[in-house]
């Protein structure tokens, strides 16, 4: 009684595993077809650059993306004196610029959210240092920055140069991180499926050596 049942199960597993493989190929093909939609805009560079040190705050900061940006764009530039952004940002192709008012030395952060041409919001933070500045703000460079930032009005980002997470810094570093963030989940999903299918096939063959 038990032997035919076992053989039946094993055959079933083998059939399942074999059936899974073409399905998997199909999924992979679809993944390939959809891949362009996954390639969202990312920040290519900024001025000032992330984690850089510059003597004075420029008259405007700019963000350059790897794709055309559609907007709307929001750019907040927060420093020891609070909000330094002046007026609304402008979008020109892949570049978003934001006028700023000069401020004291210290840690600044550009927080941005821009909608790209594919409708996807791209957001992040870019910390940088102003070493000389206008010298008007209370507190010296570095240590006073966090205090200054907390004076911001409601709705402004809480900026702390130490706690900037991977998103901003990595994106600002360039397109290098892009591949894994775009394809990492594919690799994990398809890899997992392959392991499952292989396991089923192996199990089936073992149980039914004939």
């Amino acid at each position: 009684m038990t032997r035919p049942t076992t053989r039946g199960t094993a055959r079933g597993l083998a059939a399942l595993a074999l059936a899974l493989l073409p399905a998997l190929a199909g999924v992979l093909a679809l993944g390939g077809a959809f891949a362009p939609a996954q390639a969202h805009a990312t920040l290519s560079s900024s001025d000032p650059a992330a984690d850089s040190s510059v003597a004075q705050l420029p008259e405007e900061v700019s963000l350059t993306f790897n794709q055309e940006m559609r907007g709307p764009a929001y750019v907040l530039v927060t420093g020891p004196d609070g909000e330094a952004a002046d007026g609304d940002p402008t979008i020109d192709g892949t570049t978003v610029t934001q006028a700023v008012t000069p401020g004291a030395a210290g840690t600044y952060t550009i927080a941005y959210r821009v909608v790209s041409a594919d409708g996807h919001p791209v957001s992040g933070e870019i910390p940088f240092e102003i070493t000389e500045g206008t010298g008007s703000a209370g507190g010296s460079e570095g240590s006073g920055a966090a205090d200054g930032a907390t004076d911001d009005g409601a709705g402004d980002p809480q900026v702390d140069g130490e706690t900037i997470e991977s998103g901003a810094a990595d994106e600002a570093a360039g397109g290098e991180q892009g591949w894994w963030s775009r394809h990492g989940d594919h690799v994990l999903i398809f890899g997992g499926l392959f392991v499952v299918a292989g396991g089923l096939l192996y199990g089936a063959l073992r149980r039914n050596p004939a």
Partner: protein
Amino acid sequence: MTGMHRRHLLAGGAAAIGGTAVGWGTRGLRSEETSPAAVAAGEAVTGGETEPFHGVHQAGVVTPPQAHTSLLGLDLVDGAGTEDLTRMMRLLSDDAARLTSGTGALADTEPELAVSPARLTVTFGFGPRVLRMLRPAFDPGLQELPAFSLDRLDPAWGQTDVLVQVCAEDPVTVAHARRMLLKDASPFATTRWVQEGFRRARGTERAGTTMRNLMGQVDGTVNLPVEDHARLLWSEGAAAAFDGGTFLVLRRIEMDMVDWDRTDRVAREFTVGRRLSDGAPLTGDAEFDEPDFEATDAVGFPVIDPASHVARSRSENTDERFLRRAYNYAMPTGESGLLFVAYAADVERQFVPVQQRLDELDLLNEWVTTIGSAVYAVPPGCVEGDFVGREMLNLPPPTAAEQAGAGNRTGGRA
């Protein structure tokens, strides 16, 4: 199991006894598969359900939306005046009264198609040109909509003199009612367009579920609750002959599905400000949660973008709301979109400001374009024996004899 046994027995018997038994056997199996008991247990037949045509208000406005609609845009023929309009409205009102109750129209050539009204409603509206014709006796204050910068209006879907909104749960019922109405309207008016729309078939989802448009979004979450109908839906005091009427805004909104296909889920939800899965605001857990426009993300920006559809369509002025009763459309040629149908007591005060905001800025505008636009005054309903629009045409109410005649289904046709 018993079915299988019986089948085997029958097959065996057929083989043993020969030809005549085969016929008996298959007939037995067939009747088992479609027995009345199985039908009764499987699904209820609802084609006999009716929505009353007569009443203070016209049906088809607050009526829970049926699965199918056919909007008929009619233009009065050259030289047609109020007398012709009166004759047409008498005829069409009579047709509507009969068809919605499950009776064939007078001289109905296919009365069998009328026996399942399936909640049929027929709603009439008059366009601005007709209303100008009725002045100065009657003026409910309807204006054409202002121009919106993003509209790409095709006259093929434009303003007409008369609108007939036909809705039912069943497409055959809609087709038959449409044919009868257009046939009787033909001496007085030409058909400029027919706009077909659909929602989920009855029984597919629980009744009252907010519809989804063809972009997959839950569409129509913010609607006008019953307690606001007296103030924001039904006209009162604008014109004596219009009390109990309302205004209808029809916008044919085309969706760019090719580009929408390239837009991923994050972008789609960001665009609207609601989750695709259940229509909940991005700051909430359920469809009817109030959006929190103050909530911010990790970077400090609003979770619901100020340019998103939900943020832009929202107003602090609670009068800027209206009853939404939209339908999807999909053309054989591939175009698809939404037949946006809204009802309001005052279009200029309730609808126009919202549309102006969306025209100014709405992330969704990247994928939607209004290609047809029209506005109609929807007269109040009528009593049995009367016809829709009589008060607006400044005619006396029906006599007792006329009403009695309508009861016997003999009158009404001059």
